[in-house]
């Protein structure tokens, strides 16, 4: 009896303590404070992982630069890590595309020139890989700094909602950062990434004997025939890591073809595209428009030239996840490339006639995909 009574007392004590604790937590706002304390600890733990990812990427990039004879590599990387591009004014949209193109071209040329000066003995492909590695390092550094900024700002201003929002976003941010870090290793060994699906389709269609010529900065063109049609194939110049200027190159070759009296009856853009969750990677879909994920200047060139000469503009996409687009090409995506080649051929058969000229553009980063 005595033991039962003692147990009952203990249970009552525990229940009372829990009630009192709940009241205190609820009415004093201490509950929120505890929750935010937990969130902050979680963010700090993830922030240290982000920091180590950024440091690791920097170290890997420096090793690559040093291995390839880059001069003053640490200073060079520091300079590029904080490089930024300011968006053009958009409250006055007149000529915004030209202004944006101008700024993006300057940025590309700056990166290119810096690596030409720093790595005089390396080839173009190696320099483009170094440039991409610097961009990935910069992106990881930026992610780390942004997360740190919001955490410190939230703490400084006692804004618990800012911290809660950051905590909610952290798993997604971690996934993106980890994908970037993995992508760095893939780019450094020049493995085709998922985004190379478009250029790979272009190479398949052109065939191994195609003669490629550079028509504009980092962009090549080849001509071949398919069931009586003349195909003009456009892709970025590989096997370095670049997306080239497919819009500018396409506009140029179409004007050239028309000036020669050829009938350009179809444009087909092929690119990697983000899938919805639940969709299978490597699935192929088709539609209308320019399949390209640039900020605008290249895409608008496809649309403008297609509209000017009334050329049907078709799009074929190979679906994949965000991480798959920047990591080594998976087998599913590789199989998707084969399907996309067949789909492009089907579109050409159905929507052009023998003797016509068809332009096929393989859009995407051509890392690990040369010209054959």
């Amino acid at each position: 009896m005595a033991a039962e009574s003692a147990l009952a007392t203990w249970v009552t004590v525990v229940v009372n303590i829990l009630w009192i604790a709940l009241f205190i937590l609820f009415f004093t706002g201490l509950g929120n404070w505890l929750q935010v304390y937990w969130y902050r600890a979680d963010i700090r733990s993830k922030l240290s992982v982000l920091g180590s990812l950024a440091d690791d990427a920097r170290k890997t990039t420096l090793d690559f630069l040093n291995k390839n004879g880059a001069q003053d590599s640490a200073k060079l990387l520091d300079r590029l890590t904080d490089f930024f591009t300011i968006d053009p004014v958009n409250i006055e949209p007149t000529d915004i595309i030209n202004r944006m193109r101008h700024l993006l071209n300057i940025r590309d040329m700056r990166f290119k020139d810096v690596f030409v000066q720093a790595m005089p003995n390396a080839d173009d492909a190696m320099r483009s890989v170094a440039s991409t590695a610097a961009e990935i390092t910069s992106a990881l550094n930026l992610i780390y700094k942004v997360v740190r900024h919001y955490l410190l700002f939230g703490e400084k201003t006692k804004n618990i909602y800012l911290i809660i929002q950051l905590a909610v976003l952290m798993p997604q941010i971690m996934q993106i950062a980890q994908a970037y870090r993995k992508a760095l290793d893939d780019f450094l060994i020049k493995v085709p990434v998922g985004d190379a699906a478009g250029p790979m389709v272009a190479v398949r269609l052109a065939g191994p004997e195609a003669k490629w010529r550079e028509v504009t900065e980092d962009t090549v063109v080849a001509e071949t025939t398919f069931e009586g049609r003349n195909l003009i194939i456009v892709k970025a110049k590989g096997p370095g890591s670049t997306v080239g200027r497919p819009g500018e190159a396409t506009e140029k070759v179409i004007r050239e073809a028309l000036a020669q009296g050829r009938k350009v009856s179809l444009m087909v853009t092929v690119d990697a595209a983000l899938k919805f969750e639940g969709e299978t990677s490597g699935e192929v879909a088709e539609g209308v428009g320019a399949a390209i994920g640039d900020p605008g200047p290249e895409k608008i060139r496809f649309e403008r030239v297609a509209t000017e000469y009334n050329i049907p503009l078709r799009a074929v996409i190979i679906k994949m996840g965000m991480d798959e687009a920047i990591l080594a090409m998976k087998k599913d995506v590789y199989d998707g490339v084969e399907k996309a080649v067949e789909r492009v051929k089907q579109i050409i058969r159905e929507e052009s006639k023998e003797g016509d000229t068809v332009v096929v553009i393989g859009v995407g980063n051509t890392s690990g995909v040369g010209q054959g």
Partner: protein
Amino acid sequence: MSYFNLYLLMFLIALLAATTAMTMKQMSDLKKLQEMKRRPKIITVEQCGSSITTRDFREGDYVGLATGSCTDGTPKRIIGIYALKEEGKKRGTPM
């Protein structure tokens, strides 16, 4: 046991549980980071006429690279490179 000792014990148990949970969470994050360093197996696809063969990726391989000659004298070329899915060690696959 006095009430004070009881409260102290409960506080310590709660603190221990919270610390353990946070440590486990951090360990899980670090484990994920370690797993991230595992590289997928990368395969190079080569073509000679209609014959297609695969081999392990070697640094320097890229799509379009001529890697040798076929029996008919035409160049043997790399037509594809892809990564195989990483499998868990538990399944016992030779990755």
